[in-house]
């Protein structure tokens, strides 16, 4: 029976604020400061979950947010630790992993059938005959699954932040607090991290002296020192997920993942109280002594009416005194040790008439006949390690508090490369070796006792500040020699002939499971872990690994050190996908005219990081609008935003030589004021980019590149320039220039109304010419190019004036039927002209000869990047060739890009571009075909959707205006 205790119990509670919540459909009340688990305990709810394999009822075990016993579903979030989940109003909480109700789980029948589910049974069953596995998998997933993921849950806002400090202290107990203060006093900037809501660690709930007052006094003093320092930043309710190279540590607090870099690390994570292993050690009402003390001190919950305390060291004595102070009757203290020393706490217990049974162990916890909790405990005298005498004493109780000794919370240290040894005299693990910038303080380092922990903290804080490069003062005085703490009991494991002595509560792994696995040959710690799943649950072996290693060591007659431990990987504690994803940064680039496109009703499409107009107008009329836009270019005048095209300035006395080496054509003699096509190949002779080079000055080329290729081209240019050491500078000016292609038979009169300093006549400004002048007063580079096959000018202007240029052109073109066109119309127009798109009509293997671009190769120059490969390919001959093809405009199924060209059952190529041309009233496209299929007039077959074959004819390109008369008007 659990009830609330009056103040001062309940350190974390704000009793002025009641909080309502629901668990399993029932309404409950708690206080602000409660966790879900503590509030349920205060309402005498003892069963929180069902176990993973046998569906046994489970309640509070460690109350430290580590074990699967408290996993619950909180709203849409599954697998939340109820003992870490803060209680907030109107929380909707349910249990997990049951069929029926939490109290009456039909799947609990597995507990009766346990003989049919030996360890590793799923490795040995279900796979024969093979076809049965999908059926089993479905059933096992339903039975063994934990919570339910709500895929419709709204996205939370998660983000990340970087942190830096001289010294990071992980753990806000006595040692950590002392270390932080000492490091700060030495001049270090310190961050102190603790996973709990308040600083103090074990001082918050543990008992440091028989009188029960020292822990709080020391805590107040240590916390006061920390809070009084302006060099210490405190982060409570913060989990450290791990330690990575160079002291990089991820932390989680709330919805934020912190990425912290520290010069020195102090690990003061304390130790983990270990369970005792005996029959029915998993019943609700069996809990660690620290859990009972947390319930009392932190949450003001009386954990039971009548208790038995079983302990492997002095810890249980303090718990017994705390239980007495909380009004719990303590029927007995059972001490596993053969030679427990006399202590002040022991004397106090004796004075309070609590019998102590030395050299004894809980042999079995007996469940209530009705209900899930403990009814009584059978205690037996220990004859030797793990073996008890047949006669037993029985104590009725509703609470069994256990303490099986301590193991260091060493995950961070192990990840840092620390080496631990097992002290076979004290039956405890201690740190033996640490990296130079990592320090261990307090219990995690193997110290024991409050004074030793504080002294250790001061020493490591000073050392950490020194390791951080600070000019520290003299080393703090070493602590006075203390009497070493008494050894823990050697063997806290008591197997029972009727089983149900659990080593790992998370995974329902029993003592005999481990013994059976070892007997089968799984006698390495890593094999044993994987075969039995011991340590693979949420607590990741914190409460089970040491005992499993002890069992393995004994079975193989090896020491614990020789047996070893399993690897402790990051993250140490569960972390949500939201934390890992964080806030995603998705850069997007807008051209200067971006918002004009939106205002004109454009549908935008991604092009690399850019957004470009796909077409303008009603999406329902997409195809018709694309056709209309293309037709308007052919008939009137259209403008398209080409700002996304790459732009590179190549400048210097060796600029022409540099261009000659980078591209396949010849540029040494290119006149100023003219542009020339550029084709780039890589070292393998593969086509990687194209564009035009405008010679603006004897020493200056303005080079365009493809939208998605410019960054690579720029990188390649820098790479080669660094090797060639030519007198050249390369600057990426892509964003600096907005670009508009104004094209169509009416484009010249539109431009003439806005431009008075460039002769736009065919004679004054011929095709492929380059000029500098002004449009609407805006400084402009004019390029006469013909990508869409019409009279056209590319106007490149300072980006800041791109929108003004667009506005001026639209206004000036009103009387000429000007209309913007998008990428889709441009693709159609260029396809009619047979112009290839790098990346669409080429792939990672396309050579210039395959792409029918031998015309772009300078024949006489000695070098360009990839020239040797290109010449070898030419000598070797083609295996495929890019050709144009056409089909009737009606009555045939139009192929799609990547549909295959097939001949006699063999693939000879694929379609790279295809569209219906309203101007030509036929389907036109580009495709790779076998070389002997490349002659115009050759019939080819293309396999379309549904494996149907359609006929097409290889055609000469350009399909439209083959003489180029329109673009050279």
């Amino acid at each position, binding site marked *: 029976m659990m009830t609330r205790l009056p103040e001062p119990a309940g350190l974390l509670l704000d009793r002025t604020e009641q909080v309502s919540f629901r668990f399993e459909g029932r309404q409950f009340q708690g206080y602000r400061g409660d966790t879900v688990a503590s509030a349920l305990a205060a309402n005498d709810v003892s069963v929180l979950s069902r176990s993973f394999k046998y569906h046994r009822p489970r309640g509070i075990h460690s109350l430290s947010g580590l074990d699967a016993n408290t996993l619950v579903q909180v709203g849409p979030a599954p697998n939340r630790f109820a003992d870490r989940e803060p209680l907030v109003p109107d929380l909707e909480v349910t249990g997990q992993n049951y069929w029926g109700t939490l109290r009456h789980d039909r799947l609990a029948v597995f507990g009766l059938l346990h003989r049919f589910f030996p360890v590793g049974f799923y490795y040995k069953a279900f796979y024969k005959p093979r076809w049965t596995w999908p059926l089993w998998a479905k059933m096992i997933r339903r039975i063994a699954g934990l919570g339910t993921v709500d895929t419709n849950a709204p996205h939370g806002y998660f*983000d*990340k*932040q*970087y*942190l*830096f400090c001289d010294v990071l202290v992980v753990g806000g107990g006595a040692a950590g607090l002392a270390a932080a203060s000492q490091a700060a006093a030495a001049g270090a900037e310190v961050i102190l991290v603790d996973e709990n809501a308040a600083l103090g660690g074990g001082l918050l709930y543990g008992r440091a002296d028989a009188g029960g007052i020292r822990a709080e006094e020391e805590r107040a003093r240590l916390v006061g020192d920390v809070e009084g320092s302006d060099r210490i930043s405190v982060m409570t309710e913060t989990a450290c997920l791990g330690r990575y190279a160079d002291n990089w540590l991820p932390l989680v607090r709330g919805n934020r993942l912190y*990425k912290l*870099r520290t010069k020195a690390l102090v690990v003061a994570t304390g130790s983990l109280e270990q369970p005792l292993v005996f029959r029915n050690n998993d019943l609700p009402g069996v809990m660690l002594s620290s859990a009972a003390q947390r319930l009392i001190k932190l949450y003001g919950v009386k954990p039971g009416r009548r208790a038995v305390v079983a302990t492997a060291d002095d810890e249980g004595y303090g718990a017994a005194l705390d239980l007495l102070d909380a009004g719990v009757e303590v029927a007995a203290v059972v001490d596993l040790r053969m030679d427990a020393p006399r202590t002040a706490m022991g004397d106090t217990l004796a004075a309070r008439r609590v019998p102590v049974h030395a050299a004894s162990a809980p042999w079995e916890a007996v469940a209530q006949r009705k209900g899930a909790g403990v009814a009584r405990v059978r205690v037996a005298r220990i004859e030797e390690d793990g073996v008890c005498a047949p006669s037993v004493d029985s104590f009725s109780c509703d609470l069994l508090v256990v303490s099986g000794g301590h193991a260091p919370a060493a995950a961070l240290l192990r990840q840092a490369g620390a080496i631990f040894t097992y002290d076979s005299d004290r039956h405890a693990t201690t740190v033996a070796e640490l990296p130079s910038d990592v320090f261990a303080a307090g219990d995690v380092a193997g110290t024991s006792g409050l004074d030793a922990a504080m002294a250790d903290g001061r020493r490591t804080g000073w050392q950490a500040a020194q390791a951080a490069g600070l000019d520290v003062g003299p080393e703090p005085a070493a602590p006075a020699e203390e009497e070493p703490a008494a050894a823990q009991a050697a063997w806290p494991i008591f197997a029972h002939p009727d089983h149900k002595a659990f080593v790992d509560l998370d995974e329902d792994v029993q003592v005999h499971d481990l013994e059976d696995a070892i007997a089968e040959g799984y006698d390495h710690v890593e094999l044993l872990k994987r075969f039995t799943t011991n340590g693979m649950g949420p607590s990741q072996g914190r409460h089970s690994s040491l005992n499993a290693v002890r069992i393995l060591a004994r079975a193989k007659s090896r020491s614990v050190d020789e047996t070893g431990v399993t690897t402790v990987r990051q993250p140490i504690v569960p972390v949500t996908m939201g934390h890992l994803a964080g*806030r995603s*940064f*998705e*850069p*997007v*680039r*807008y*051209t*200067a005219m*971006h*918002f004009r496109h939106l205002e004109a009703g454009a549908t935008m499409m991604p092009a690399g*990081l*850019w957004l470009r107009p796909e077409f303008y107008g009603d999406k329902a009329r997409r195809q018709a609008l694309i056709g209309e836009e293309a037709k308007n270019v052919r008939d009137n005048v259209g403008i398209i935003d080409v*700002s996304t095209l790459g732009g590179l*300035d190549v*400048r*210097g006395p060796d600029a022409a030589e540099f261009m000659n080496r980078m591209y396949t054509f010849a540029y040494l003699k290119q006149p100023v004021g003219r542009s020339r096509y550029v084709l780039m190949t890589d070292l393998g002779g593969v086509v990687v980019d194209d564009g035009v080079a405008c010679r*603006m*000055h004897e*020493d*200056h080329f303005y080079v365009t590149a493809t939208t998605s290729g410019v960054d690579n081209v720029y990188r390649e240019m820098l790479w080669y320039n660094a090797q060639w050491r030519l*007198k050249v*500078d390369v*600057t*990426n*000016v*892509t*964003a*600096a*220039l907005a670009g508009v292609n104004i094209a169509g038979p009416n484009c010249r009169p539109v431009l003439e109304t806005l431009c008075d300093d460039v002769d736009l006549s065919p004679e004054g400004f011929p095709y492929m010419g380059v000029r500098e002048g002004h449009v609407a*007063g*805006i400084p402009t580079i004019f390029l006469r190019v013909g990508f869409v096959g019409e009279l056209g000018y590319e106007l490149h202007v*300072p*980006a*800041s*004036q791109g*929108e*003004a240029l667009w506005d001026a052109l639209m206004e000036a073109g009103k009387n000429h039927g000007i209309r913007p066109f998008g990428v889709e119309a441009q693709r159609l127009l260029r396809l009619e002209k047979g112009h290839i798109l790098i990346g669409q009509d080429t792939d990672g293997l396309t050579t210039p000869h395959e792409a029918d671009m031998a015309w772009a190769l300078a024949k006489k120059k000695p070098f360009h990047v990839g020239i040797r490969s290109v010449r070898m390919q030419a000598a070797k001959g083609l295996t495929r060739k890019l050709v144009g093809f056409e089909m009737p405009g009606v009555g045939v199924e139009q192929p799609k890009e990547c549909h295959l060209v097939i001949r006699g059952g063999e693939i000879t190529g694929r379609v790279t571009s295809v569209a219906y041309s309203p101007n030509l009233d036929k389907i036109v496209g580009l495709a790779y075909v076998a070389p002997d299929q490349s002659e115009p007039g050759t019939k080819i077959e293309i396999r379309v959707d549904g494996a149907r074959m359609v006929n097409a004819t290889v055609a000469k390109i350009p399909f439209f205006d083959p003489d180029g008369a329109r673009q050279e008007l």
Partner: protein
Amino acid sequence: MAIPAEERRRSPLYRALEAHGARFEALGGYSVASDFGREAAADAAQAGSLGLADLTPFPRIGFKGWNIAPWLAGNGAEMGEASNGAYRQADGTRIARLAPGEALVLADRGGAGPLIETLDGAWSMAEADGCFRVRRDETSCWLLLTGAHAPSMLAKVCAVDLRPQVFTPDAIAQTNVARLNVIVIRGDLGPVPAYDLITDLASAVYLWGALLDAMAEYDGAPVGLAAIRALLGGGEASS
């Protein structure tokens, strides 16, 4: 009041500024946000706490090449040998040395840059001699992040340690902010920490949104020239 869309030169952020209620003043063919309708004291307090200003309209010019140092020195611009430092000039402009062969000249906090005009006028392709002009006013947007919360807020979007005690005045980090390549320059406004952020002009709208989102936690908001002037102690344009 100046109207951005009536100017020939337009910051890519002018719509975003208008959406926040900016009032504009004219500057060098641009409209630049003057304030956002707050009282003067509140405006200065905002900038002192956490503010983001669009300085894209401010003059700036870059130079690249193997011969930038002597060319700049020959035209009255002095900078130190060390890269990743900003060097203050007599007229209030700063020269950010990004590499041995790359420099960026920034106008003062009032948007004036006599040295920039001088350098721009002196440069020609014909006489470049290994020092090439880069139109940084067109390649890059320029944001100014101000206020006591700026270092914490930057830690949400940048992995470099930009805390004031580490990233000292006039220090430069060429780094990644919200997945963009950004030049970060420490350039305080009097006692108020401030960071110039210079990045790809085409990504200005994205970065503006990403920063404001990260600033929301600290109640950060856009600020204009008035707030900058106030922090500098009046209407003087100085750095």
